[in-house]
Structure formats: C-alpha cells, structure tokens
C-alpha cells in the first residue's frame, strides 16, 4: 500500500519560516486537496516532497523509504511525480518525445519504440493524439497542461502532486483533467491537488489539508474542515477575494443557481453547463 509520512517538516528561507512543523500521513489511494492563502507554503511543501528543496528539519518517507535527502530525479524514480504551477513542457521537443522522457528515465535499456503504443494511448486519452509529432511549443496553454499530465502517466508514480492543475483551464479541458484524476486514483495512486479553485477542491477531494502561514491548521473530511472555526477564522481574518470565496463555499452559499458544487455532485452539472455535450467544435 502507498504510504507517505511527513514528520515535523520545517523550512526556513533566511529569517522567514515558510513551513512550521508540518506533519501528516497518507495511506492508500487517497484524493487530497491542499489549500491555503498565497504564501501559506503549499509550493514549498511540494518542492520538499519532490526533493527540489531540502527541509531545514524533519523527514519525509515514501512507502517506508526516506526520500527527503534524495535529489528530485531519485524521488521521481522511487515513485513521486508532480506537475508545476507554471506549465513546464519541453517546448522544442515533440509531444511524443515529451512522453518518452519519463518512460525511458524509468526503464533503463528500453527504447522509444517500446513505449509508442502506451504513449499513443495516453495521448488518445488526453485528446491530443493528433498533435503527437508537433513540437510542444505549438500546443495551446491548456494542451501543454494535458501534456504534463500525460508525462505523469508515463512516469507512473505511486504518489502524485498536482500544483494548480485547473488554473486558466477551459471547462472542456477541465473535464479531461477530472477524468485523468479519476483514472490515476482508480489505479490506486494517491493524489494531492493544490488549487485556489475552491469549488473544484471541495467537490473533488475526500480529504482536505489547510496550510496557513506554514502551519497545517486543518486536516480531515472536507465537510468537517469547511465548518472548522479555526479555518474560517484563518480565512476570514484576511482581506482577500479568494479567501472570501472559501468562506462562501464553506458557508454553502452558491455563486449562481446553475453552478452548485455540492461535494462531488456538482460534477455532472458542470459538464452540462460547459457545453461539452453539444456541438463538440471540430
């Protein structure tokens, strides 16, 4: 079973304490939302889990193996994959080549040919198979996001962190990303989603982590977390549009009548309202 154990992780940048005693544990194929205001330490935590940053103190174990001293490539090979807040495709490489990079990195002595079928299946799933021989730079912003997700499918890690997967994404593409998350979660992988899109986070995740000023202030069932006075207090204490959004969702008051994200049920209505079922603009 997949396990991730984060023990008392601290991280200082000079005098700034970005993470303060963060501890949590993930068991099995959980689907977890990680939220917090800007500067809460979400991306820093991701970078520590992925090996790009070393914690000032504390440890991280993945499947019983201590990974915090590992460099990123080793963390990836041990089974933790991530996307980046800003899309980072290999722009002057073709779409297929983008997918071959993780596949070959994970399989020594393998050739590109061996992964062609798998790569095409992945691209089919992401609806960008027709672009397979184009350079990644020719892809739209949304398609590059999909390509990043495709690379993760080729890497095939046990544990996945998605940093802002829905930022600037059209509803049609969002639906594909939803399917992607369902797919990897269904394959038994654990997924942490970082997002500022509260509707999505509350409808997708079955567990919610809330970071505030580097402290993990809540961890648990989204329904309970949204009513946690500490969370509400932390969020309401700031003058911030996004935080008011949280309290809005937390209070359960919808933005418009057609957009009701009620913990999972909001998904189908989203598809309907996005116009995906209609013309399918070819």
């Amino acid at each position: 079973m997949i396990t991730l154990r984060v023990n008392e992780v601290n991280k200082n940048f000079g005098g700034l304490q970005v993470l303060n005693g963060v501890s949590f544990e993930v068991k099995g194929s959980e689907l977890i939302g990680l939220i917090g205001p800007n500067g809460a330490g979400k991306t820093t935590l991701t970078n520590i889990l992925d090996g790009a940053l070393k914690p000032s103190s504390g440890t991280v174990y993945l499947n019983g193996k201590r990974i915090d001293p590992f460099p990123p490539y080793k963390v990836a090979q041990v089974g933790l994959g991530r996307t980046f807040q800003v899309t980072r495709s290999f722009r002057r490489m073709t779409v297929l080549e983008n997918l071959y990079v993780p596949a070959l990195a994970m399989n020594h002595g393998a050739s590109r040919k061996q992964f062609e079928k798998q790569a095409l299946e992945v691209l089919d799933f992401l609806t960008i198979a027709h672009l397979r021989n184009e350079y990644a730079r020719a892809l739209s912003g949304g398609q590059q996001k999909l390509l990043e997700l495709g690379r993760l499918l080729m890497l095939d890690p046990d544990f996945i962190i998605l940093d802002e997967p829905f930022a600037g994404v059209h509803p049609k593409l969002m639906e594909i990303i939803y399917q992607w998350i369902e797919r990897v979660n269904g394959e038994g992988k654990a997924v942490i989603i970082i997002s500022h899109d509260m509707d999505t986070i509350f409808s997708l995740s079955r567990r919610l982590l809330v970071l505030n000023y580097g402290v993990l202030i809540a961890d648990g069932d989204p329904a309970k977390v949204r009513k946690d006075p500490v969370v509400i207090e932390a969020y309401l204490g700031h003058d911030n549009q996004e935080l008011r959004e949280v309290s809005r969702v937390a209070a359960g008051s919808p933005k418009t009548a057609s957009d009701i994200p009620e913990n999972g049920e909001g998904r189908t209505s989203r598809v309907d309202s996005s116009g995906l079922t209609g013309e399918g603009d070819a």
Partner: protein
Amino acid sequence: MRKWVPRLAALVAVGLLFAFPAIYNRSDYNFVMHLWITAFFYAILASSWALLAGYAGQFSFGHMAFMAIGAYGTGMFSNYLFFTSAPTNLCTEFRLGSRYLVLLDPIGVSSTKKNCLEIASNSWPADVLVWQPSIWWGILIGVLLGAVIGFLVGALVLRLRAAYLALFTIGFSEILRATISAEIPLTRGQAGLELPPLFPHGITLLGRTFSATSKVPPYYVMLVLFLVCVAFMAWLESSRFGLFIRSLREDEEAAAALGVNTVRYKILVFVITSMMAAAAGAVEAHYIGIITPNILIILQMSLVIAMAVIGGLESIVGAAVGAMIIQFALEFLRNSFTIGSVTVDMSIWRLVFFGLLLMLTLRFWRNGLIHPILLWFSRARTKEETVATRQITEPAAASEVQEES
C-alpha cells in the same frame, strides 16, 4: 519516401569523400586536400559543439580549449617521451624491464642547447637504441586528458546557466592559453611546439606508398575520425542520451522531476564533446606539425560557433556540413574582384561578408541554413498527419462524450 533522401544523400557524399583523393587531379591538389582536412577538423569541432550547445543547451566557449588540450597533450608526449635500451644517467628515467622510459628536460626556445638524451647518446656505443612510442599513444593520451578535464569542467559548471556558463568557459579557455604562453621552457610558448607527422615513415595504402608529407593519409585519418564522431553522435542523438540532454536543455527541473539524472547527463555531454574536440586537435596538430597558443584564441572559438550556428545548432549533420561549406567559402572568397574602378580586396572583406551572413542567419534563420533542409525531409508530412488525425479523432471524441452524458 522523402525521409530516405537525406540518408541516401549522406551515403553518396561519404562515398564521394572516400573517393575524392583518387578522383581529383587538378594542379591545386595539395591545396584542396589541405582544405578538406581542415574542413573535417572544423566539422568535428562544430558538430560536437552543436551537441553540447544546441542539444544540451550548454553554451560553452571553452570548446577550443579542449581541442588545445588534445593538441598539447600529444605534443608534449611526442616531444618529451623516449625509450632507450641503455640508461642515460642524465635525464629523468624509469626502468621498464630491459628498456628505459626517458623524460627529457624542458626544451626551451634556444636551439643551441642540447638535451640530456643527445648528450648521453654521444657517449653511447653504436648499438644503443633510441626510439619514440607510437604517436597514436600520444593522441590517445590527449583524448583522455580532454575527457578528464571535460569531466572537471562539467562538474564545476553544473549550476551555471547561460551567460554565467559562457563567462566561466571563456575564463577557463583564457587561463589555459595564458598558461601555455607563459610556460615557455615546457611549451616553447609563441615559438610553437613542433610535432612529428602522423606517419613519420610514410605509409603504404592499397599498394600505393605515401610519404610522410603526403596529404592523402592525413585526409583519410581526419575523414574517418570525422565520420566516427558524427556516427557516434547521431547514435547518441537517437538514444535516450539525446532525449535526456534535450529535455535538460528545455527545463532542467522538469526533467529531474520526471526521473532524469540531469547531473549525470550534463557531465557526460561535457566529457564526450571534450574528447571529440581533443581528438580533432591532436590529429590536426600532427598534421600541421606545429602548434602555438593561438589555436585557442577567442576568434577561433567564434569561428566554430559561427559554423555551428549557420549550419544549424540543433543538428549534428547540419553543423558539420555548415562547417565544411564555410571553410571552403572562406578560402575561395579570397579572390579579389573589381567593380568598375573599385577593387574589392576580398582577403579582408570576406570576413565582413561572413559576419553579415552570421548576423542574417541569427535574425532570420535561427535554426541555421542546413538544419531546416534536413527537417523538411525528416519531418515530412507532420502537418498533414496532424490535420488528418485530428479530423479522425475529434468527431469520435465528441461522440464519446455525448454517450457518457
């Protein structure tokens, strides 16, 4: 079909290059042969630099320094190492079984001073043998030196990017040049270090005997070295190595997050390209017969960069072909011409035209001039394929979604 054209063209070109010394019989034979040898030399440098800078994104200005390391490596070897069958009791020497490995003292620039071996040989009986190890060992040592120093430089510049890497490698190159210039007793500085020819006693090839000064044997040595380097790099390019170094050029963090050991591949690409530059330098040094620190001035490095840029930075073959074309163009553009009453002295102006070509290439053809031609063949019908498959898959995808909901 179209994808096979470049391969066929390459095969024909290689065949022609092998046959050239036998076919060509004009009066400028030696001059043209010399141009070809130099063209191969620059082609190795430009294409290996393309692998380093174009593929791996490591814009090093120290490539000529590795060429010089190869040249001086074998130069020192052939000037200082001798075997004798009797001890000199004057030089630094090591006994190896029945023979002695003799290290000469620094030569210096004065020609009147006799070295310790010459002094010792005056008092030896006639049957004492003095011989040099094969120069191929020297070339090998030059290449290994290139590998070791390439490894060290690669490890040192791991965290340096773009302008910082360029500055670091310029610094490295200049330090090496200054050291070679300053160590006059050892390297003879600007006076130049002399080297024996590739085949000091001539060679017999296919029944024909060539003298030590013939251009034909060095032509084939350089051609084979060039082809081996390009073939090896083409193989690397198609392997995981090529994929990984391009991914680290595009985005090092993303490549690492996908399991690529970026440190290893960055160092490896430095080692491999440094070895090729060193090999080219070592062979060229024996062919020319004398080397000076001027072989690694910035202008030389700029020439190699310009060749790679004009040929195509992201193409091994493009850079190599670019180097050859420019090498020949620079020579043939020496012919001055007259327009009315104005005589254009091309021996000076050719560099202006060359600079202009470089600037225009950078502005309008960032992929170089040769690379796009190769792409036109290798990426044939990509556009049509994209459009065609989109038309097939998109209606299907749309109907799938319809079914789902």
